[in-house]
């Protein structure tokens, strides 16, 4: 899977989570905004983490060299 496809999945998960939170704990506009902020922050954090690790392995300058003991 490519970078953009997976990013799209993250986006999708984020949207679903936001809708889910909106439907399940609807407690007025102020609280909903807080929930939305939390979901967006969480998704961005998770996506960043994944994207960093994925990009770092995209064109590696070094490759795994097996240990003699293995």
């Amino acid at each position, binding site marked *: *899977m*490519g970078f953009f496809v*997976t990013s799209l999945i993250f986006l999708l998960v984020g949207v679903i989570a936001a809708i889910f939170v909106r439907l399940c704990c609807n407690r007025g*506009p*102020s*609280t909903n*905004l*807080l929930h939305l*902020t*939390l979901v967006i*922050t*969480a998704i961005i*954090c*998770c996506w*960043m*983490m*994944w994207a*960093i*690790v*994925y*990009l*770092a*392995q*995209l*064109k*590696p*300058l*070094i*490759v*795994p*060299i*097996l*240990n*003699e003991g*293995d």
Partner: protein
Amino acid sequence: MSTDHRSGGGCCPPMDLMRSEPMQLVQAIIPIESSHQTVSYLGDLGLIQFKDLNADKSPFQRTYANQIKRCGEMARKLRFFRDQMTKASVFPSALTVAHPNVNFDDLEAKLCELETELLEVNSNNGKLQRTYSELLEYVLVLQKAGEFFYTAQDSATAQHRQNEENIYSDGSIEKPLLDQEMFIDHSKQVKLGFVSGLVPKGKSMAFERILFRATRGNMFLKQAAVEDLVTDPVSGEEVAMIVFVVFYSGERAKTKILKICDAFGANRYPFTEDVGRQKQMIDEVSGKIKELKVTIDAGLQHRDNLLKTISCQFEQWNLLVRKEKSVYHTLNMLSLDVSKKCLVAEGWSPISASTQVQNVLQKAAKDSNSQVGSIFQVLNTNAPPPTYFQTNKFTSAFQEIVDAYGVARYQEANPGVFTIVTFPFLFAVMFGDWGHGICLLLTTLYFIIREKKLSTQKLGDITEMIFGGRYVILMMAISSIYTGFIYNEFFSVPFELFGKSAYACSDSSCSDAYTEGLVKVRPAYSFGVDPEWHGSRSELPFLNSLKMKMSILLGVAQMNLGIILSYFNGSFFRNNLNIWYQFVPQLIFLNSLFGYLSLLIIVKWCTGSKADLYHVMIYMFLSPTDDLGENQLFDGQKNLQMVLLLLALVSVPWMLLPKPLILKKQHEERHQSQAYAMLQSSDDGALGIEPNHASNDHEEFEFSEIFVHQLIHTIEFVLGAVSNTASYLRLWALSLAHSELSTVFYEKVLILAWGYNNIIILAIGIVVFICATIGVLLVMETLSAFLHALRLHWVEFQNKFYEGDGYKFVPFSFALLTEEEE
């Protein structure tokens, strides 16, 4: 100025928790007859923080000092009851919900009555107990001293007989005359007196010495240790004792000895030489002891019954007394009206609660049959209102993390909102292992599931802390499970969960794999770190480079978030100066240096370039015009670098100079206009002057002070941009330490033990592995990752926007009263 802040949200509704609740200073004029009722209803509501209007008065000068004293006295009695109950191991029954209304005065009378009764019972019991232990001692003395006399008499008669035999067997001339004289004296001999009693074992040596000196040796002390501990009648303590009998001659010696006995706390008991009398006395005393025992038991029973009746209602009384005390304490903070018919209350209250407060005032006036109702009005003030966040059980622990650094200034952007996600996330970056994450999750789930039960009972210090932060730990656990999947570590073991590894041997013999390495045959591993890296010789260089760059990227992102929040503060408080001369240059400065570094990192990854980023960054400053050569990552990089460098250089004076100069100009303008004519005073609120500047007529404006302040702020930001970015490298270090430690425990303990093919060694290995995992990785590493995440939030994130110089809203509330247990 303070009223038009609320609309600051703009397009969206105001976010919960982002800004503290809008507050107002309210005044209530309460008729004196309904004041007690009103305050106690307000305590039930718990939404007003009363201001002390009698701050100049000492506690004794206040209106309700007397009632407070009464409450204190009642609380003392209750404490006395509690002590007595713990001594008698009677425990107060849990608070019953449906308690009948107890009158304060009745309760006072009742407590007084109960106290006297209890004291009387106690003193009677004490007296009886004392007599009882005295009698016990007496028995001891009778027994031990009886033994002395018996043995003494035995040996005396034996000697006597021997002497007599001597006399009669050889009535020779050689027999000394003196001897005979002695025997003749026998009948004239002075009768020796004696004193018997008990003395504590520790003092017995000194006692003997003093006796010897005082009587110049003219005494004879006989002593015997008592095997068991004896209850001292005076102190009631169990001590080791010695029974003694002192023989003396003469009245003077007797008085001396008695005095010494008193000084040593020796209990004296009468004793007779007569063996028959002794027996009789022992019998007599034993009978008395039996009788006393019965009486004492009955007394104790009576006391226990009394304490049990107290224990039934103890908690209720305790609560009532504490409520009353807090009510009078609050009433003391209100000021008495001139007419002495009303009390005036002032306090902070959330604007949203004003209808509730008014309803309570009306209800109290009705319930207390007052003829006039209370008057409620909002006051205008320039004083900074308290900060009040409405948190729930989930958000409160996160808010406490923020509050531990500093309570937010009234209505400033609350970092707590983002802390809910970013704090567990940064923790998890350092604690990425989904095996450990699951362990944490199970621990915290235990606390969350038993939440209702645990919240009522008393916990130990550490358990209490874990329980308080259970939702923080829950988020931390979930995040570390996620980052564990990213790092592909389950107790440091990788799994090929998300597709196949991107690397494989170059040929079937796989001989190159140990020298040249594997070959990339597929696109990059789709989720997380490729499992093939684990255990390879190039694992550390790869992970180091990855985690170091990741730390910088995450750090720059979080610092940018902090700076953006300072924009929200600026726009909320309509402070354009802060937006244009602080937020904008700060954003430019940070991103032209470290934003650019982040860009370079990403470009390097995407292109697979071998450029040296250190070199690029360093020579961007040292010789920006030089050609980049092989370190060039993209076209036009040199020009971009020069532009960015220029922007960074420009943004420093931009941060430093304009703000203080503009403030000075504004001040001078205002000063001039005031000098010429009395203009409309506070129309210029929108210009973005600090709130305390806008209203005050005789404000102090010290240009040098403001300039120095701005200078410090600028230096802090510029140096901080570098040092804070470096500080985020702790993410790399801690995460590396965690994964290395868990690898060591797994390979050097578990796998090593496995290799012996011996079940005992394996069992020991598993035990050691579990202990090391729990002790080092789950406890110590959690703690250190927690502390580092805390620091990154408090310092690196919050110093970009957070003032944190507010004070907390502490309402007068009965609910808070029960929490602060003594």
